[in-house]
């Protein structure tokens, strides 16, 4: 089974470790820079949301993260014991207007939706479960000698 699992405390300073895990997972499976970057950004947005808004101030909890490659897709499961929150319920951001009119917020979930092929939310018992998935195109699993491995 090609998967890796971890649990992190609900603190922002725990996120650097997640980036390292995604990078190691990407290297092990020959994933492209692009996929690794997409997963890192999407996970960053999701974990930030959970850590910043799912818990009462000061409440300590853990967030589960699981990465797996199933049938040509990378699947990322995130689960937390925070208050029920469906990130897919957020309205799309207003991305119009010049510099002066432009709103500065709301890009996070927009990135997640657009970087991933599918985002599914379920509330199971007392836990939120979010599944992100993205198909690995043939050019996104690079052979040795490709961008990720460097040319030798």
């Amino acid at each position, binding site marked *: 089974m090609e998967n890796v699992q971890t649990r992190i405390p609900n603190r922002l300073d725990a996120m*650097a470790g997640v980036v390292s895990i995604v990078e190691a997972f990407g290297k092990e499976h020959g994933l492209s*820079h692009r996929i690794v970057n997409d997963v890192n950004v999407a996970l960053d947005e999701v974990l930030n949301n959970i850590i910043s808004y799912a818990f009462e101030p000061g409440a300590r909890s853990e967030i589960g993260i699981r990465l797996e490659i199933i049938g040509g897709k990378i699947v990322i499961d995130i689960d937390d014991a925070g208050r029920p929150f469906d990130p897919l319920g957020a309205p799309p951001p207003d*991305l119009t207007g*010049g510099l002066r009119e432009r709103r*500065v*917020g709301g890009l*996070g979930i927009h*990135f997640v939706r657009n*970087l991933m092929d599918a985002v599914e939310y379920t509330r199971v018992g007392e836990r939120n479960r979010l599944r992100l998935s993205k198909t690995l195109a043939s050019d996104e699993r690079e052979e040795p000698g490709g961008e990720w491995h460097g040319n030798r």
Partner: protein
Amino acid sequence: MEIVEMLRGPVTIIEPRGALDKSGAPPFGDRIFAVIDSGSRNLLVDLQQIVYISSAGFRTLLLAHKRADEVKAKLVLCGVSAEVRRLFELGRVLDLFTICATRDEGVAKAT
């Protein structure tokens, strides 16, 4: 987040190193605002050493750019990787920024 700052003529070059995420974006934003507040009107932000940028980083870049615009300062970007550029496109902010291919071009543009 490590932030390297240097001067090239009138241009202050700010190079964030690490992830421009929720932890890295605030000190990065503070630094840009401090540079503007200290009177610099020519800024180049070199993104070549960032691991990745999240929405928090974009928020900071937009706020900094708005601030620069208010005081009629030039704010130019360089060192934008293909991955980062794609996020600029996804966020529809590509057209709001001046992005140069190299640091030298960036310095010229920001002067």
